[in-house]
């Protein structure tokens, strides 16, 4: 059996706040700018899903939207909504249902895969254009690490253990 995790809720909240800030920055700023033959184009995180949507691939765009934007956002805000009242032994409205949704949707949060996919795209583009990394590319790399830490210290098991302790 696994050793019980003694991480306090406060640590999880701190990391979740950090993830939320990085998530906002990653969504607000452009990822990269491409210069080629006097033209330049830039894209944001949303650009990946919107590019697919613009070309008529609605389901594929929805999949990219779910895995790079919606799932990470629900994962982080949902956790904060549940954990902040929980640290003073109070229960957020709809807590149990939300934790069920939260733990399901976060298995669809693929930020780290997106990050590597973006690198592959940039390597391919750098063969014929000048690629300038922008703010969101760096915050996305940090977000990848912070989200991995957050997911591991707020395992489904741990979340329910906290809830169970607060009932006692």
């Amino acid at each position: 059996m696994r050793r019980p995790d003694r991480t306090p809720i406060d640590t999880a909240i701190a990391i979740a706040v950090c993830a939320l800030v990085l998530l906002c920055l990653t969504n607000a700023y452009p990822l990269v700018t491409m210069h080629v033959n006097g033209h330049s184009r830039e894209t944001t995180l949303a650009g990946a899903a919107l590019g697919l949507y613009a070309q008529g691939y609605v389901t594929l765009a929805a999949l990219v939207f779910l895995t790079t934007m919606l799932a990470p956002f629900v994962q982080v805000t949902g956790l904060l909504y549940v954990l902040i009242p929980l640290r003073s032994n109070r229960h957020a409205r709809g807590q149990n249902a939300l934790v069920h949704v939260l733990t399901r949707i976060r298995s669809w949060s693929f930020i780290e895969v997106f990050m590597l996919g973006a690198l592959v795209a940039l390597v391919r583009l750098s063969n014929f254009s000048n690629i300038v990394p922008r703010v969101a590319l760096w915050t996305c790399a940090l977000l990848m690490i912070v989200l991995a830490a957050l997911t591991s210290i707020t395992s489904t098991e741990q979340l329910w253990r906290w809830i169970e302790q607060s009932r006692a």
Partner: protein
Amino acid sequence: MAMDRTEPGVSGTATGRSLGLLVCLNCRATVRNVKAPHMRCPRCDARLRERKPHSLAVTGALLVAAAVLYVPANVLPVMDTRTFFDTESDTIMSGVLVLLHSGDWPIALLVFIASIVVPLLKILALGVLWVSAWRRSPRHRQQRSELYRLVEFIGRWSMLDIYAVSLLATLVQIQSFASIIVGWGAWAFGAVVVLTLIAARTFDERLLWDPPQ
């Protein structure tokens, strides 16, 4: 625990079911199994089930669909690059070759593993697991459980190419100079990834440990 001490493969291995214990798939609480038809987990209130209902049928159907779509995913182009002079179609494999020829072999290897090896491995591994659960084969249970966990862990990485293609298609839209159009291969590939991810989740790992009939 008793389960760990029993040698794998020996018939009569103690399982949760044989000890009257049940794990809640939602919160991982271990519950003493009262044989009530609609039992709920005392900790998280999720429905407790001895085995996921119709696990083999659902997983099998998803797996067949994924295997069928694997063909167009690899044959159809994932993107067309249109320039002044010509149109170039790239399948997943030719995308890997392009990276290899431009000298980026570590990236080429990464894409090769994530887009070619992982989906194929997942379909084959889930196929093997499905057959051994269906036959209730008592051999190599430990290794098969490990294989299942591996499939669950690596599954998401095949999305890599979808993200790369979608960013390329967004960035490379430079009037008449060059544009990248997403192909139906990307759609089929995305479908393979999602179907195998869901198939891994509908598969009940505990079926691997059921005693032979």
